């Protein structure tokens, strides 16, 4: 091993920097979680103190559970995020494969067209999207959100994935063709596993904005039964009074699933990097 890399002082410095960064990044999350377990008064008196016997309270969680159907919101958010991500990855990867693998007329134009969405924020089209959803009767359904998020995520997905798929060895795909694999098998069994790190990147990039989005749920699906978590939490934030206990409790619970998804994707990222390559 490289001497400079195994030097204990360098290792310590490197880990020190990483630990420091981790602490800074996790601090807000930590503050949210500890305060969600405190009484309202304790939150404001000593925001950084851990909950003790006197200040401990589950009032925030109780409010959240009582007010509205929190688990339904939770479920809605999860469905929208997971289904949108699935569509983005599936269709994005398929489009990227077609663009990078096949020679056809208008290939370049099609690629540019698909990437155009990166530069144009989808919210500009909100009114038109709302019109469209009203006309198709999709308002106040989760499908409205899923379609919009899929459309929003595809351009970047196609852009990133086609770049990665160009790097997958042509010989490997040709070997598959000679061995009698169909184009679909080549795509799913040979190419996708090799671009898994890129897929994980795309998934992480898309997941957070979808989970946290307030705009489209508010406009396209504000009904009680289709509210997402972010929208559902808004009831606790008022113009004059904000129920901080409830807000912090709702946020604490909202963090969990994203964390789980993130762990799954980052694991894929590492496995993709370490799996055996062509040469």
């Amino acid at each position, binding site marked *: 091993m490289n001497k400079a890399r195994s030097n204990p002082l360098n290792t310590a410095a490197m880990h020190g920097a990483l630990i420091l960064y981790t602490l800074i990044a996790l601090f807000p999350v930590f503050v949210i979680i500890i305060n969600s377990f405190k009484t309202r008064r304790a939150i404001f008196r000593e925001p950084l103190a851990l909950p003790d016997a006197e200040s401990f309270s589950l009032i925030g969680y109780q409010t959240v559970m009582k007010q509205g159907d929190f688990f339904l919101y939770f479920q809605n958010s999860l469905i929208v995020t997971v289904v949108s991500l699935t569509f983005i990855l599936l269709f994005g990867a398929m489009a990227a494969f077609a663009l990078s693998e096949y020679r056809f007329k208008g290939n370049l134009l099609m690629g540019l067209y698909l990437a155009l969405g990166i530069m144009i924020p989808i919210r500009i089209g909100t009114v038109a999207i709302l019109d469209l959803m009203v006309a198709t009767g999709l308002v106040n359904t989760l499908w409205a959100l899923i379609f919009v998020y899929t459309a929003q995520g595809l351009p970047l997905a196609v852009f990133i994935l086609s770049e990665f798929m160009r790097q997958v*060895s042509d*010989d*490997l795909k*040709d*070997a*598959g*063709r*000679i*061995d*009698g*694999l169909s184009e679909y098998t080549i795509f799913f*069994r*040979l190419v996708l*596993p*090799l671009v898994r790190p890129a897929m994980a990147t795309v998934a992480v990039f898309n997941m957070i904005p979808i989970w946290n989005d307030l705009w489209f749920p508010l406009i396209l699906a504000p009904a009680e039964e289709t509210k997402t978590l972010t929208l559902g939490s808004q009831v606790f934030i008022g113009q004059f009074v904000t129920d901080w206990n409830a807000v912090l409790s709702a946020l604490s619970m909202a963090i969990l699933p994203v964390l789980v998804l993130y762990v799954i994707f980052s694991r894929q990222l590492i496995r993709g990097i370490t*799996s*055996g*390559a*062509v*040469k």
Partner: protein
Amino acid sequence: MTALTLTNVNKSFGSVEVLNDINIEVDEGEFVVFVGPSGCGKSTLLRVIAGLEDVSSGEVRIGGELMNLIPPSKRGIAMVFQSYALYPHLNVRKNMSLALKQEGQSKQVIEERVAKASKMLNLEPYIDRYPSELSGGQRQRVAIGRAIVREPKLFLFDEPLSNLDAALRMNTRLEIANLHQQLDASMIYVTHDQTEAMTLADKIVVLRDGHVEQVGTPMELYNNPANQFVAGFLGAPSMNFFPASLIGESTDVTTGIRPEDLFLSDDGPVAADVTHIEHLGGDTNIIARMQDHQITARLFGQHQLDVGRTVRFGFSLDRVFRFDPQGKRLDNA
């Protein structure tokens, strides 16, 4: 019977013509090498035979059957790639058996063939390993094994040795030659390395700029090249070319002499200044300048000569090749 017949094959990408009117026949059991400088279209030609590229016009027949519209997996061919192209998520056994499974062969047949191929290639100890756990030479053997198990009518090799180091390349070359004898199969082998071409081939096809320059056995091409390109491409070090006027013949003819046909001679007709000497032990290569032309002489054994000294080379006249200004071979002066 012919294993492969190419008739008037043309291939162009857009307006770029890559293959130009190719006519080649490969007999059953023959080892044919396509050789040429990079960009000459030899790999494209192989991909056309494999069915990975369509021909723009012309006919590809394998075992007498027209193959123009048949997909690669149904052509009865197997291909070995330069980059091995092993499936990274499958172990050696599954890499070799995948194609057979796709063909719908029975489990027993698959097992038999994989066992036979891995024995032939000494792959048995590695049969459950993944490609990432194998060395370059082992991976190339797995790639060859994957071709063997299919028992194809025609083997296609696309520069299979160019990713291996020199020692391994020599060994694998011998293995491929052995394999050809054992399997008695027709093989087509693409390379830019003239040594591989000379040592392996029953028949060499020399390609340049998308068309066939000459077809023949290695010795035919060496002894009787049709033009200056073939003469210069085969043989190492390559043939010396200089205007015939330098040895007192007619002016617009180019003379070619192979380095191994030159010898030191005090009253030889060619005088040159030594610029560099390569001592190879068994041979000595002398690089010298004769007016504006560099010539190389390959002498057997070890010779001590000083750089800068003028030496005279002799040669026998029947070992001299003559080419017209277009590079075409002239029969005799």
